[in-house]
């Protein structure tokens, strides 16, 4: 059953991290060790920490353009230098191990060699010496992976968002958040219950031991395959949310947007690396997997109003649910 269906699906659908395990959705801490394969009705996902898909080059080009246009999307407080190098020396070997045909990483003490055939890149650099990289270290690592990056420093019994590259974030802004406590970054949340979840999440993060890796998923919806839905660009995408409701193209334009978030305690700096990878799939693509079509339809129909508002999907969620369930 799975195999006949799988053969007709595109690779991005087969590996899509469909997040719903039930017909209704509520907040939960939903944290699990990573990487770890999860099978779905279309295939499965999650066996790699960093997922490279057919959008790799186009997304990295888009990120570069956003950073050129708006430098506030990359921010780093001065003390985060070692944490950024720690990110580089943690992620490049993982990439090389997972994609040995197109990437390789070797290291002799502080001297490193990195080859990435997908980007036609072949460089030697020295850990701790920014001048040996083609660009500043934080921007460099963000030019190798599709994930957004946030780095949290732990001190005074709290976590602080002190560095990051956020170009594809669902409705938040790094320039505004950098230097804030992790708990404050989450801002006003609709349910007291969720507030406790975030406090518990912070406790959990502060206990992570060096090298430990966990992940969770989060979801929302986006009109068109627009990665950059940051606060700053709201005027460009905000109005679409209303307009799409009556558009006959709604199934193609409306996307389920899933963030796979990885939480990694970096081994040398002790900072927490928070990777946010955004995957999108249109309702039309979802309808190719009948089990997903039904489940997403039911989740959207049942979602309480305050949660729909918080996710910014209240304008069109009924239209989406009707299409998915009505056929």
């Amino acid at each position, binding site marked *: 059953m799975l195999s006949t269906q799988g053969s007709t699906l595109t690779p991005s659908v087969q590996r899509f991290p469909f997040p719903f395990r039930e017909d209704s959705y509520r907040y939960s801490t939903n944290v699990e060790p990573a990487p770890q394969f999860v099978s779905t009705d279309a295939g499965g996902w999650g066996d790699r920490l960093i997922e490279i898909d057919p959008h790799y080059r186009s997304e990295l080009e888009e990120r570069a353009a956003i950073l050129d246009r708006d430098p506030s999307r990359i921010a780093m407080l001065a*003390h985060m*230098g070692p944490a950024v190098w720690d990110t580089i020396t943690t992620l490049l070997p993982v990439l090389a191990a997972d994609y040995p045909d197109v990437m390789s990483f070797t290291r002799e003490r502080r001297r490193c060699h990195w080859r990435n055939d997908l980007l036609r890149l072949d460089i030697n650099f020295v850990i*701790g010496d920014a001048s040996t990289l083609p660009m500043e270290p934080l921007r460099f690592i963000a030019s190798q992976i599709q994930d957004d990056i946030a780095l949290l420093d732990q001190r005074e019994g709290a976590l602080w968002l002190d560095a990051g590259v956020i170009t594809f974030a669902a409705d938040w802004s790094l320039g505004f958040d950098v230097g804030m406590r992790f708990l404050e970054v989450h801002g006003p949340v609709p349910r007291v219950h969720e507030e406790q979840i975030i406090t518990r999440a912070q406790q959990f993060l502060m206990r992570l031991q060096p090298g430990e890796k966990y992940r969770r998923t989060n979801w929302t919806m986006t009109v068109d395959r627009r990665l950059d839905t940051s606060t700053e660009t709201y005027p460009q995408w905000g109005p679409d949310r209303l307009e799409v409701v009556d558009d006959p193209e709604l199934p193609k334009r409306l996307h389920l947007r899933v963030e796979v978030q990885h939480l990694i305690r970096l081994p040398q700096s002790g900072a927490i690396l928070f990777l946010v990878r955004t995957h999108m799939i249109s309702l039309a693509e979802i309808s190719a997997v009948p089990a997903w079509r039904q489940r997403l339809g039911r989740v959207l129909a049942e979602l309480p109003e305050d949660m729909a508002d918080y996710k910014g999907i209240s304008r069109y969620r009924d239209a989406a649910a009707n299409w998915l369930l009505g056929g």
Partner: protein
Amino acid sequence: MTATAEASAPALHDALELVLADVTDQTPSIRSFTFRDPAGNGLPPYVPGSHVIVQCGDKANAYSLTGSGVLPDEYTISVLRVDDGGGGSATLHRLAPGARLTVSRPRSAFAPVATARHHLLIAAGIGITPMLSHMRAAAEWGHSASLLYSYRQGEGAHLDDVRELCGESLHECTDRSSFLAALAVRLGEQPLGTHLYVCGPQGFMDTVLHAASEAGWPASRLHSEPFGSADLDPGQPFSVRLSRSGTVVDVPSGTSLLEALEDSGLKVPFMCRQGVCGECVLPVLRGTPEHRDLYLSDAEKTANNSIMCCVSRSRDAGLEIDF
């Protein structure tokens, strides 16, 4: 080999099997041990000030790593021999190169504060070990750090290392009065944004922390590392009610809850008996534990629903545990 996984403490799950590569005498009573991966691979990097738990026979002890933590090929610890101590330091001192040991992955509990403008490190005796790690990391990343090191004449471990690393920023003291004078100067002259780190015997740490707060240092800038310190104080007597049997067990001053339970013929899992490994945790149903361990998080300590019975005691006269 396979038995370790089931029998060992939580901290030793997923541990490393390392070979003792080198043994060096620092002083007549302090010896350094260097471990490597038997296959010659690099070891997991670590945060400065981290410790590992080393299993030695049926005991497990925590020791600070003395390297910077950046891409290590080896782990080095220094161990003070305590002949009558229960911890296994004497057993370690008897080991020769080539021996195989189970060593936990590094755990971070004494990290430098990344935002500090200056790190003031204060060590006594064997308390030098985490400071060596801090100093090395500061040198590698170009951070500002200075060290005040107090040791007994002829008993200074790692003197060559710290002299070479610190240069001008090292101050050595070999008697109490010169240490106190140097401490007063350091506490008075540190610029805003300095964080202070102290490691050594309990009394030494108390002296330093007390003097710092007298000199107006906020608690958020003071950090202490109790490993290698003297024994915990004996504590007040208390009693525990065991909910499953209804039995009441008295815990006299100077006896741990774990020992008291063992004395009444009960079997509690344990490993380190120092509050670091996490093996001896017991659920608390009533009463307020006096947490003295290094295993539970601050949040878990505040929740007061578990106790590490090898070191922790009770704030109240009575405690009820699910056992």
